[in-house]
């Protein structure tokens, strides 16, 4: 069992409240996943700047002078915002790859959470309320976001085993369920050049979608392909820079509820997660159909 929440805002007036609404939804899903929690927030791109979110078990050591060290390595100014065990590094768009490679040498113990011009991912072991407080998620603004509360079944309870998983620029995926053919798929994806941080099944699904997007498929088509190639139980919610997608396996055991108003599209593992959203009383609320891809793009 796991909990998933997601919000895709249509009304820019709600953007300052994205973090606050997602935090409330996430905490409501605590009893579906008290092991760990995570959130991906898309806060919009700043002109010419990209973002790298990193995590460290020893932030006081790893993040000390990291901005200056990275500046020296890539020859461009770097802005750093430390939030607990995570740091968001802002670098010029053209230097994202150089900064990533430099990070591996500068701070070998640091883990990469996400890369892109809009996405930031924060995830840790612990109760959703503690994780949300640690990163001050309630204060975050953005256009869309996805959260996950994990009850681990398939691999260890670690920071890197928490969701969301990000395996491509501005991409993320969260999962409720378990996959049965992830080992074979992982080997295929490794042959195609993907790299993996964990033994987790969800990371394979994330990498699968990233690979399809890299091959030129749009999000909807990539998720359609996933229905053919991924075997197991899944409700996935996927984020891209401009989009938000949902797909359930054909058996559809893992719960899912969606709500749509003029202001937003919302996803919850249960209706409970949606009850405090503005205008929910008059929202169109429905259960996504099995083996059917839903996605919204702006």
């Amino acid at each position, binding site marked *: 069992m796991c909990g998933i929440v997601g919000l895709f805002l249509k009304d820019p007036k709600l953007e300052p409240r994205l973090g606050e609404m997602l935090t409330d939804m996430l905490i409501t899903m605590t009893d579906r996943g008290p092991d760990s929690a995570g959130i991906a927030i898309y806060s919009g791109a700043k002109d010419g700047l990209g973002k790298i979110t990193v995590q460290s078990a020893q932030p006081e050591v790893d993040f000390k002078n990291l901005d200056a060290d990275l500046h020296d390595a890539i020859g461009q100014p770097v802005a750093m915002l430390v939030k607990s065990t995570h740091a968001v590094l802002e670098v010029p768009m053209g230097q994202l790859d150089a900064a990533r490679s430099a990070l591996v040498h500068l701070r070998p113990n640091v883990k990469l959470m996400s890369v892109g011009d809009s996405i930031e991912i924060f995830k840790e072991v612990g109760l959703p309320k503690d994780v949300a407080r640690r990163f001050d998620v309630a204060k975050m603004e953005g256009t869309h976001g996805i959260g996950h509360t994990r009850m681990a079944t398939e691999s260890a309870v670690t920071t890197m085993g928490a969701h969301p998983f990000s395996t491509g620029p501005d991409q993320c995926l969260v999962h409720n369920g378990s996959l049965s053919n992830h080992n074979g798929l992982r080997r295929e994806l490794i042959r195609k050049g993907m790299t993996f941080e964990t033994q987790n099944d969800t990371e394979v699904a994330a990498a699968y979608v990233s690979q399809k997007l890299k091959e030129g498929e749009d999000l909807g088509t990539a998720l359609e392909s996933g229905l053919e190639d991924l075997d197991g139980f899944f409700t996935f919610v996927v984020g891209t820079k401009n989009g938000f997608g949902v797909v359930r396996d*054909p*058996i*559809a*055991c893992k*719960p899912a*509820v969606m709500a749509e108003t003029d202001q937003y599209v919302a996803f919850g593992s*249960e*209706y*409970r*997660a*949606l*009850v405090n959203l503005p205008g929910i009383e008059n929202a169109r*609320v*429905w*259960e996504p*159909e*099995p083996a059917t891809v839903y996605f919204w793009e702006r």
Partner: protein
Amino acid sequence: MQSFDLGKEGLRALNSSLHALRGQTNMTAWEVINPKGAHAIAAGVDAPVDITVRGSTGYYCAGMNKQATIRIKGSAGPGVAENMMSGAVIIDGDASQYAGATGRGGLLVIKGNASSRCGISMKGIDIVVHGNIGHMSCFMAQSGNVVVLGNAGESLGDSLYEARIFVRGTVKSLGADCIEKEMRDEHFALVEDLLRRGEADTKAKPEEFRRYGSARKLYNFNIDNAAAY
């Protein structure tokens, strides 16, 4: 009318108040406000009372119901009226997975759509769905009746025993050992009665329905196959 604010007083207080109604009671009308998708609302009631839930519910609302009439003025989460024994559960909106699962008696009315596995392993309950039902509905259903005014999803009635299924719209596919059967007079009468009790008699007529039931090849032991065991 007893009004109960679930947001203030909590689920455990609600259900213990309702469980205490066994036997004689004058408190026959109940209203639950602020359900907010909570789990197990009014589960395990065993008294001839009328309970109205003003909003949508989470898992297992009205589970194991005996005697009570429970109305949900919203949509219901997974497992609504699971293992109902008697009484009635009436949902104004949609019902999630396995509505009425394993139900042994009583009437479940869903005025919207029901999703997958509606009536799975039912054992005597009657279910009336004004909209559609999802895939694998009535899987291994043993007895009771299901009336669907809309369409049915894939694998309807897979491994069916003796439950009767009446569908007005299309059936995406029939499950193993489920076949269409002739509508006889007693079936028209049965559907007419269920449409009336299911508050659907103005929406559909018995002659618009087709009947599906068990071919009885799967669950009967066939002596010719003895060598295979």
